[in-house]
């Protein structure tokens, strides 16, 4: 029973990090119809930003967190302006190749700057403390992560539902061209989407790397793919869907890892993807799309 609860907690924790990254995928896909292949690598770069801030520049953790989020957002917006904006009217395959190119570039660039060897991630004292609840012992960060994520998701849903920019985002994701005709500034909406996605990826990266304690240039690629699966599972374009998808992927992965088939936990995620795409192409909460000729 204890082991079960322990797994639940770990699964929820990793799942909520997946959810944070998945939101970035889901929002960008909702608006641009583009899989941002570079999102996982932005997440990885955020890990390196934290190392630079805390280990190299010795900035205290509370300032570092703010700096890391700001730097990640800046990186994401720059990527959008340089690599995606010029291709707005290009065929979809070109944009996708551009996204892959950015991902490839970030991986190689990180290898160049920081070498392929894992770098140790700084610790934030109070987050690494062990907490004892009943018979389960865990670090505080594992405990905080799901709560923080749920709060962030609620805030984000409010933003999308209640504010003007949120309404603009919904309009753009529904119909790109009509939204433009109604006087919505497409570019600022897209930039804003990237700001939110990257800020969440920055927060996710801090929560992800603290318990794992090392960053390497490919650290973002597998989590990135898994988070995309989470986004598809929950229904692409849906923010609560990303949360649920993230939790489900995180939990299933943790339970498989603790069973005899631990080697196959990553493989299982992709099998989920294929099954979901076949049986439930719009995911759990996705809108049904009709194919127009």
């Amino acid at each position: 029973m204890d082991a079960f609860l322990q797994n639940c907690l770990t699964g929820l924790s990793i799942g909520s990090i997946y959810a944070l990254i998945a939101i970035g995928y889901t929002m960008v896909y909702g608006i641009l119809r583009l899989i941002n292949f570079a999102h996982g690598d932005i997440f990885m770069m955020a890990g390196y930003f934290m190392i630079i801030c805390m280990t190299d520049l010795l900035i205290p953790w509370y300032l570092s967190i703010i700096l890391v989020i700001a730097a990640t957002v800046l990186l994401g917006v720059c990527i959008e302006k340089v690599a995606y904006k010029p291709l707005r009217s290009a065929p979809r395959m070109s944009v996708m190749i551009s996204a892959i190119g950015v991902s490839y570039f970030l991986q190689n660039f990180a290898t160049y700057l920081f070498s392929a060897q894992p770098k140790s991630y700084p610790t934030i004292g109070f987050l690494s403390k062990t907490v004892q609840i009943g018979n389960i012992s865990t670090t505080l960060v594992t405990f905080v992560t799901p709560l923080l994520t749920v709060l962030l998701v609620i805030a984000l849903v409010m933003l999308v539902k209640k504010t003007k920019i949120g309404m603009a985002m919904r309009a753009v994701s529904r119909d790109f061209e009509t939204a433009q005709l109604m006087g919505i500034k497409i570019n600022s909406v897209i930039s804003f989407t990237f700001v939110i996605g990257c800020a969440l990826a920055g927060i996710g990266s801090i929560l992800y790397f603290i318990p794992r304690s090392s960053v390497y240039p490919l650290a973002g690629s597998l989590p990135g793919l898994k988070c995309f699966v989470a986004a598809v599972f929950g229904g692409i374009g849906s923010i609560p869907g990303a949360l649920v998808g993230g939790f489900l992927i995180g939990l299933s992965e943790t339970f498989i890892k603790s069973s005899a088939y631990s080697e196959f936990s990553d493989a299982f995620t992709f099998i989920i993807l294929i099954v979901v795409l076949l049986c439930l192409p719009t995911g759990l909460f996705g809108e049904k799309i009709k194919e127009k000729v």
Partner: protein
Amino acid sequence: MLSKKTKKICTAAALVALAAVIVCVGQFTKSTSMLRTVFQLGAIYALLAVSMNLCNGFTGLFSLGQAGFMTLGAYTYAVLTIPSASRAGVYYLYGVAPWLEKLELPIPAALLAAGLVAALFAYLIGLPVLRLKSDYLAIATLGFAEVVRIVTASSPLNRVTNGSLGLTMIPGFKSYYGIFAVVIGCIAVIVLLINSTYGRAFKAIRDDEIAAEAMGINLSKHKQMSFVISSFFAAIGGALMAMYMGAISSTTFTIAVTYFILLIVVIGGMGSVTGSILSALLVIASREWWLRFLDQPLYFGTFRVPLLKTGFRMVIFSVILMVVVLFFRKGIMGEREFSWDAIYGFFKKLGSKKKTEVQAK
């Protein structure tokens, strides 16, 4: 315009020249020569790029499963050909599966088997996956490649694939020309396929799926066919790579390999066989030879040239990829193929320009 006969003579001359270059390199260089590496590796990557182009460039299916099929091909080839005498050494930790102990196929049979195994998997995975739209297809095939990688390294297969230790002592062709023979043969088959009615159907699907369907092209059948054939040749490419390197492990063919092949295809032009071949040779020559210096620190007297250190080469490659995608979306050749008319036209234009300049003076 050139007459058909001249073109034929030109093509024949070019092919003879190409063969002569390969033979010269084979005859007159040492086995450690850079030219040999570039030609052999370039040929293997050319096959991989052309096979990816068949699926991505000609049929418009954005598949990123290359690395997975290469793993399948490389492992099948290696498992079937490692000499039975050295098997005990290779599988020293886990022992070898009993049915493998005495197995030792000749190289051509093993290559064929490698392709067929990958084609079988491509068929099975293609049934569900090819129904997906472009970007979902990309993610699903990427995921498939990752699954293949994880399964080959997993413990239930230890006695076949040697788990995470990988396989060594993989035999290759005795002669330097073997790889070229296989690559040229495979590319020739792909070119014949592209020029056949099937090839025209592939291009029709790429250009407009709905129109193609209205014209009576069976979409799922042709997509499946293109995907399976592309995987077949990707696996043979993977097997050649295993042969070239002599040792493989589950981490040999990662997503980065797929991206690198994509880079070659994009630089050469999506939908151009000659473009892919040309760009494979150029990119490999730059990676292995011309741009090597980027990875070493360089000094002029006491001045150290900034930026140059390990890893800079790959950064440059990714920048090139980005520049090509953003500014030269067609790559070297676009969708065109190499043709003598184009070259003739180019020189004629150049000549007439000069003439008018002279007259103007």
